[in-house]
C-alpha cells in the first residue's frame, strides 16, 4: 500500500512511464491491488484542482490499460465503469476517462449492463465537435468494441442506439476515424432495424461519396484512398433500402465528376446494384442506361469506359437474372436488355461510323452476362451483321463489318474461356449461326481489305473447341495454303495472322498441316541460294523459313522440318557447279538462315517443354557435325559454304540446344565422340554421314597454326562443352593440360570473334564446373601465365590485351560459382589498371567479369551462386570509386572511370543506387572519354537511373540537370559525334528529362536545347531524327 502511494505521488510529480510500469508489475504479482491504487489516488480523483483531477484519472486509465485482464473481476469492472461514466460529465476528465473506457470495454469480464451503461453515458455526455481527432478515435473505438462484443445489448436499445450513434458520427472528417465509423455503419446497416433511420444513415454515409481524400506525403498512418473507398463502398451496399436514394446521387456524380470520380461512381454502382435489387434497378433502368451509355459512346478514357461496360453488365444481370428461370426457349426477352440491344443494333446499321465501335462493345459486354441475354444478343447481332455483310450496298463497308463481327466472336470466345464452360457455352451461343459466320468469313478471305479480319476470325473459331468440324478445318487450311502461295507481297499483320492461324491448327490437327501446307512451303524453298542481287527472292526465303519455324513445333512436324532442311543444307553446302563457286557467300548466308531456323524452332520447343528434342542427338546432329567437319577438311582445296564462321556459329547454337536437354549419360557419350574428333584428331567412323572424309587428313587444330575453317570448329567443341552437367567426365587425359592448350590457342592462333568466344566459353564453363579438378591450371594462370603473357612489356600490346581477355574468362567461371580464388584474379587485374599500355583493357575486364551472360546459366547446368554479380560489384565499387577520385594520376583515373562504367552496366540499378551521389560526378566526367561505346553506355546508365522513378535518383538527376543537359547537347549533334549509338542515347536522355525534373530547373536551358535539337532534327540518320523529334516535342510541352 505504501509503495503504491509513493508511486502515485511520484507519478503525479514527474509523469514518468517508469512508475506506471512498476505499479502494473506490482498488481500483476499480487503485491498490491487495483483497489489500493484507487485508494492511493483518492484525493487526486476528487481534487478541486482540475489539473490534478485529470492527472489522477489519467494515471488510473494508464494502469488499467496495461493490467492483465485476469486482474479484473465483475465487480471491479462495474465499479470502474460507473466511475468513468460519471467522470464523462466532468469536462476536464473526459479525455483520460475515454482512455480508461477503451481498455475496460475490451475486457472479457464486462457485463451487458456495463456495456449499455457505457454507451448511454457516451451518448449523454460526448459532444464530438468539441473533441480532437485522437479523442474522437477513442469514442469510435469504444463503440466498435462494444459492437463486436455486445452487439445484442446494442440491438435491444435499437432506436436509442441509432439516434445516439448517428449524432456521434455526424460530421466526422478524419480518415482514421472514418475507417472505424464505416465498419460500424456496415454492421448497423446489415444487422440493425433501420427502418426509421434510413435517411439519416444515408446522410452520414453518402455524404462521403465520392472519396476525394489524398494521403499527405509521408503519412505516418498510411491510410490510402483505396482503403477508404472500399470501406465506404461496403456501407453503400449495406442495405437495399438505400436503393432509391442512392441512384439519383450516383447519376448526379457521374454527370459532373472528374474522370476518377466517374470511375469510382461506376465501380460503386457495380457493387451496389445487385444489393439494391431488380425492382430498384428496373425503375431506374432508363436513366442509368442513358448516363452510363454516355461514358461508353463518348468515353473520357479507356479505364472509365471499361468500368462503364462492367456497370452495364451488372445492371443487365440484376434486372434479368430473377427471370432467368422463367425463360425457357429464350429468343424473346423483354424489357431493358432488349431495348438496349435494339438501340445498339440500330447504330450498327452504319457499321463504318465511329459510333459503331462502342455499340459493339456494349453488345460484347452483354455476351458475358447471363445465358438468356447472351443468346438473345448473339442471335440478333450476328444475324444483323451477317445480313449487312451480304447486302450488295455495303460492299465498301465490309472491312468495318468484319471488324465488328470479329469483336463479337472474340467476346463469345473470351466469355466461354473465362467461365471454363468452354464447350457447352460457345456451342450453345454460336452453334446455330456457325455456318453463316463461317461462310461470311470465307467470302471475306477473298478480298485484300477484309483478309486480315477474316484470318483473325478463323483463329477465334478454331480456338473454340468443337465448333468447326474436321472438314471445315480442312477447308480453312486449303484456303490458307492458297493465300500462302498467291500473295508474296502480303503486309506483315496479315501474314502474321495467317501464320498464327496455321500454327494454331498445327497444334490440334498436325496431320492436315503436314500433308497440305508443309509440302507447299518446302517446294517453294529453292535448292540453290538466291544470288547476291536477288533481294526479293531472298526475302521470300526468309519469310518461308520464318513460317516453318512457327508451324513445325509438334514432334512429327519438327521431324519433317529437320529432315527436309538438312537435305536442303546438303545441297547448299556442297558446291555442285562452277557458278556456285564464283560467289560462295550467298550460299553461306542461306545455310546460316536454314540453321537459324532450326535453332529458333528448337528454342520455342524448349520453352514449351517438349520432350522429343533429346532423340535428335542421334538423328540429325551427327549428320550436321559430319557436314561441318567435312567442309573444314575439304576447304583446303576449295572454298566451302559451311566453313564460314557464321554458319559454324549457327550450327553450334543448334548443337548446344540439343545437348542442353540430354541426361548426363547421354552427354558423356556424345562428348566423348566429339572430343575424339576435334581435340584428338581421330577421324574414325563416328559422325560418318553422307559425306566420306577425305582420307589421310586430320584436323590438327591445337598443334599450331592451321586454317581458319578448321579453327572455327572449336565453336562446335564449345557448343558441346557449355551445357554439360557438372558430373559429366570430360574424356581428355588431363583437364588442366586441355585448358592450357585452349588458352595458348586462344591468345596465339584464334583469328575471329567466334573462335575467341568459343575458347573463352570453354575456359569459363570448365573452370566453373570442375574448379577443384583444374586447380593446377588456375594457379598456372595466376602465376606464370600472368607474368609472361600480360606483365612482360616486351610482348606486343595486342597480344597482352588478348591475354587479359583470356584471363578474364577464367575469372568469370570462378565468379559465377563464388570461389574464393576469384579475389586474387580481381586483385591482379586491379594491379595493372594503372599501366598505361594495357590499363584500359584490364579496367574493362574488371567490369565485364560481372556481366551476366547466357553461357554460365542454370539452363546450361552451371554452378551459379545466388546474386554473384551484385556481390562482386558491391565489393569492387568502393575501390574503383576511390581510385577514380584520385586526381594525382590522370591516366589511371581515366582507366578507373572505364572500369566504373563497365562495372555498373553489368548489374541492375539497385546494386549501386545507394552510391549514386558519389557516382554521379564521376559519370559526368566520364562523358569526355573518347571511346564512343563507353560514352554510350554511360549515357544508357544515366538514362536507367533517370527513369527509375526512385526519389533518391530523381533528386540526383535534378541536382545535375543543367550539366546533364549540356553534356547531352554536346553528344547529340551529327558533326561533332560520329557514333549513331551515342547520338541516340543522348537524345533519349534529353527526351526523358522534362518528365523527371521540375520545370523551373530546366527553364533556363530551354531555348538552348530547342535550338540545338533543331540541328539534330536534320541528322542524316532516320533513327536519330526520330529520337530528336521525340526529345524536342517533350521540351516544348
Amino acid at each position, binding site marked *: 500500500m505504501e509503495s503504491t502511494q509513493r508511486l502515485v505521488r511520484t507519478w503525479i510529480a514527474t509523469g514518468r512511464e517508469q512508475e506506471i510500469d512498476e505499479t502494473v508489475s506490482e498488481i500483476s504479482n499480487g503485491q498490491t491491488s487495483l483497489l489500493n491504487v484507487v485508494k492511493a489516488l483518492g484525493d487526486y480523483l476528487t481534487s478541486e484542482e482540475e489539473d490534478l483531477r485529470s492527472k489522477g484519472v489519467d494515471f488510473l486509465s494508464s494502469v488499467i490499460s496495461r493490467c492483465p485482464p485476469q486482474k479484473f473481476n465483475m465487480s471491479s469492472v462495474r465499479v470502474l465503469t460507473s466511475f468513468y461514466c460519471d467522470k464523462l460529465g466532468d469536462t476536464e476528465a473526459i479525455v483520460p476517462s475515454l482512455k480508461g473506457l477503451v481498455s475496460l470495454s475490451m475486457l472479457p469480464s464486462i457485463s451487458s449492463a456495463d456495456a449499455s451503461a457505457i454507451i448511454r453515458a457516451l451518448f449523454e455526455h460526448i459532444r464530438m465537435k468539441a473533441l480532437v481527432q485522437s479523442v474522437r478515435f477513442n469514442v469510435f473505438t469504444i463503440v466498435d468494441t462494444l459492437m463486436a462484443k455486445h452487439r445484442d445489448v446494442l440491438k435491444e436499445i435499437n432506436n436509442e442506439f441509432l439516434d445516439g450513434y448517428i449524432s456521434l458520427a455526424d460530421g466526422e472528417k478524419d480518415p482514421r476515424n472514418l475507417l472505424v465509423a464505416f465498419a460500424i455503419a456496415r454492421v448497423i446497416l446489415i444487422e440493425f432495424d433501420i427502418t426509421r433511420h434510413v435517411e439519416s444513415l444515408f446522410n452520414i454515409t453518402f455524404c462521403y461519396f465520392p472519396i476525394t481524400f489524398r494521403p499527405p506525403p509521408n503519412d505516418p498512418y498510411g491510410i490510402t484512398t483505396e482503403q477508404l473507398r472500399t470501406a465506404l463502398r461496403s456501407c453503400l451496399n449495406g442495405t437495399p433500402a438505400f436503393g432509391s436514394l442512392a441512384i439519383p446521387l450516383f447519376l448526379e456524380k457521374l454527370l459532373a465528376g472528374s474522370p476518377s470520380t466517374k470511375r469510382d461512381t461506376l465501380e460503386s454502382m457495380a457493387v451496389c446494384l445487385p444489393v439494391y435489387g431488380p425492382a430498384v434497378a428496373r425503375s431506374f433502368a432508363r436513366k442509368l442506361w442513358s448516363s452510363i451509355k454516355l461514358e461508353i459512346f463518348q*468515353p473520357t478514357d479507356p479505364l472509365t469506359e471499361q468500368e462503364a461496360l462492367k456497370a452495364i453488365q451488372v445492371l443487365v444481370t440484376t434486372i434479368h437474372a430473377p427471370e432467368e428461370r422463367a425463360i425457357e426457349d429464350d429468343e424473346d426477352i423483354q424489357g431493358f436488355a432488349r431495348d438496349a440491344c435494339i438501340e445498339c443494333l440500330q447504330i450498327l446499321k*452504319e457499321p*463504318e*461510323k*465511329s*459510333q*459503331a*465501335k462502342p455499340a459493339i462493345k456494349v453488345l460484347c459486354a452483354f455476351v458475358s452476362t447471363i445465358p438468356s441475354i447472351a443468346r438473345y444478343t448473339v442471335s440478333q447481332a450476328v444475324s444483323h451483321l451477317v445480313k449487312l455483310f451480304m447486302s450488295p450496298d455495303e460492299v465498301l463497308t465490309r*472491312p*468495318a463489318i468484319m*471488324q465488328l463481327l470479329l469483336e463479337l466472336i472474340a467476346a463469345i470466345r473470351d466469355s466461354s474461356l473465362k467461365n471454363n464452360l468452354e464447350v457447352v457455352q460457345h456451342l450453345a451461343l454460336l452453334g446455330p449461326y456457325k455456318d453463316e459466320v463461317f461462310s461470311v468469313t470465307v467470302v471475306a478471305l477473298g478480298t485484300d481489305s477484309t483478309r486480315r479480319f477474316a484470318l483473325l476470325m478463323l483463329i477465334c473459331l478454331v480456338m473454340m473447341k468443337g465448333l468447326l468440324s474436321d472438314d471445315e478445318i480442312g477447308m480453312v487450311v486449303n484456303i490458307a495454303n492458297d493465300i500462302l502461295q498467291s500473295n508474296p507481297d502480303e*503486309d*506483315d*499483320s*496479315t501474314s502474321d495472322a495467317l501464320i498464327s492461324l496455321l500454327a494454331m491448327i498445327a497444334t490440334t490437327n498436325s496431320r492436315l498441316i503436314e500433308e497440305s501446307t508443309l509440302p507447299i512451303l518446302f517446294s517453294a524453298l529453292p535448292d540453290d541460294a538466291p544470288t*547476291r542481287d536477288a*533481294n*526479293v527472292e*531472298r*526475302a521470300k526465303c*526468309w519469310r518461308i523459313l520464318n513460317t516453318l519455324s512457327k508451324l513445325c513445333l509438334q514432334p512429327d512436324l519438327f521431324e519433317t522440318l529437320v529432315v527436309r532442311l538438312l537435305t536442303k543444307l546438303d545441297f547448299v553446302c556442297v558446291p555442285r557447279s562452277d557458278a556456285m563457286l564464283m560467289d560462295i*557467300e*550467298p550460299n553461306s*548466308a542461306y545455310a*546460316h*538462315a536454314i540453321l*537459324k531456323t532450326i535453332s529458333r524452332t528448337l528454342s520455342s520447343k524448349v520453352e514449351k517443354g517438349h520432350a522429343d528434342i533429346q532423340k535428335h542427338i542421334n538423328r540429325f546432329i551427327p549428320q550436321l557435325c559430319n557436314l561441318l567437319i567435312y567442309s573444314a577438311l575439304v576447304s583446303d582445296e576449295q572454298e566451302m559454304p559451311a566453313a564460314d564462321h*557464321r554458319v559454324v556459329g549457327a550450327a553450334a547454337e543448334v548443337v548446344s540446344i540439343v545437348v542442353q536437354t540430354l541426361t548426363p549419360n547421354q552427354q558423356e557419350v556424345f562428348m566423348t565422340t566429339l572430343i575424339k574428333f576435334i581435340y584428338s584428331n581421330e577421324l574414325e567412323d563416328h559422325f560418318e554421314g553422307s559425306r566420306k572424309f577425305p582420307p589421310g587428313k586430320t584436323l590438327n587444330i591445337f598443334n599450331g597454326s592451321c586454317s581458319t575453317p578448321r579453327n572455327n570448329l572449336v565453336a562446335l567443341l564449345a557448343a558441346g562443352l557449355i551445357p554439360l552437367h557438372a558430373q559429366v567426365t570430360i574424356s581428355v587425359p588431363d583437364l588442366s593440360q586441355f585448358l592450357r592448350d585452349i588458352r595458348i590457342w586462344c591468345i596465339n592462333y584464334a583469328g575471329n570473334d567466334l573462335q575467341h568466344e568459343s575458347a573463352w566459353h570453354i575456359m569459363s564453363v570448365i573452370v566453373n564446373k570442375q574448379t577443384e579438378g583444374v586447380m593446377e591450371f588456375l594457379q598456372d594462370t595466376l602465376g606464370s601465365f600472368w607474368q609472361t603473357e600480360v606483365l612482360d612489356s616486351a610482348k606486343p600490346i595486342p597480344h597482352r590485351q588478348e591475354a587479359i581477355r583470356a584471363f578474364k574468362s577464367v575469372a568469370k567461371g570462378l565468379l559465377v560459382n563464388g570461389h574464393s580464388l576469384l579475389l586474387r584474379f580481381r586483385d591482379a587485374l586491379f594491379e595493372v589498371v594503372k599501366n598505361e599500355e594495357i590499363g584500359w583493357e584490364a579496367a574493362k575486364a574488371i567490369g565485364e567479369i560481372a556481366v551476366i551472360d547466357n553461357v554460365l546459366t542454370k539452363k546450361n547446368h552451371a554452378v551459379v551462386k545466388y546474386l554473384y554479380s551484385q556481390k562482386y560489384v558491391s565489393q569492387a565499387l568502393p575501390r574503383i570509386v576511390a581510385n577514380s577520385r584520385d586526381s594525382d594520376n590522370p591516366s589511371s583515373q581515366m582507366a578507373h572511370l572505364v572500369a566504373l562504367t563497365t562495372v555498373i552496366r553489368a548489374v541492375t540499378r539497385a546494386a549501386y543506387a545507394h552510391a549514386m551521389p558519389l557516382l554521379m560526378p564521376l559519370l559526368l566526367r566520364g562523358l569526355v572519354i573518347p571511346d*564512343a561505346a563507353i560514352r554510350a553506355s554511360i549515357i544508357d546508365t544515366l538514362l536507367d537511373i533517370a527513369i527509375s522513378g526512385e526519389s533518391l535518383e530523381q533528386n540526383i538527376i535534378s541536382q545535375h540537370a543543367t550539366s546533364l543537359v549540356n553534356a547531352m547537347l554536346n553528344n547529340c549533334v551529327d558533326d561533332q559525334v*560520329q*557514333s*549513331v*549509338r551515342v547520338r541516340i542515347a543522348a537524345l533519349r536522355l534529353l527526351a526523358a528529362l522534362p518528365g523527371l525534373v521540375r520545370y523551373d530547373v530546366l527553364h533556363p536551358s530551354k531555348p538552348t536545347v530547342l535550338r540545338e535539337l*533543331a*540541328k539534330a*532534327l*536534320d541528322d*542524316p*540518320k*532516320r*533513327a536519330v*531524327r*526520330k529520337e530528336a*523529334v*521525340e526529345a*524536342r*516535342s517533350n521540351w*516544348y*510541352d
Partner: protein
Amino acid sequence: MNTGEIYNPNPIIFSPKKSSGRKSDLLARSLWLEGSTQTEDEANQPEPIDQDEIFVLTPCKDLIRSIYDPEHPNTLEELRVVSAPQIDVGQNHVRVEFTPTVPHCGMSTLIGLSIRVRLLRSLPNRFKVDIYVKPGSHQSEHAVNKQLNDKERVAAALENPTLVQTVEHCLSQQ
C-alpha cells in the same frame, strides 16, 4: 469543345492502312539473316527525309498520322483527314493537303494548326511548310488556307494560351 457544338457527331472511321513497311528497307537488307557484322555506325549513308517520314516516322511515334482530331478520340489517319499521298516533300519544302470530314467543319483551322505545329517542332528549320485544305472539300476553303499559311496569324494563334492548350491536346493525347 467550348462551344458545345459538334460539327460531325458520327464520322466514318477507316481502318489504318497497311503497316507502312518501307519497300526500300526490304531491298536494302543484307545477305545475312541476322547478326550482320556491319554496325550502323559504319554505314554512314545519309537517309533523306521523305513522304513516309512526314506521315509516319515509325509505328510508335508518328508525325502527322498520330495527331488526334479535336472532336473525336480518333487520329487524323483513322478519319482519313490526311494520308501519305497527300504529302509532298521536296528538297526544302513540304506541302500537306488535308480533307475535313464535313464541308462545314469548324475545326479545320485547328486541325491545320496542329499539323503545322507538329511539323514546326519536328522538321529542321530549312523546310518551308505549306498546308492546304483539299480543293473543294470545305465551304470556306480560301479563308482556311489563308489563315494557315500566314506566318503572322499562325504566330498570333500560338500566343493564345487556350488555343495552344487545345493544339497540345491534339498532339499528345494517346
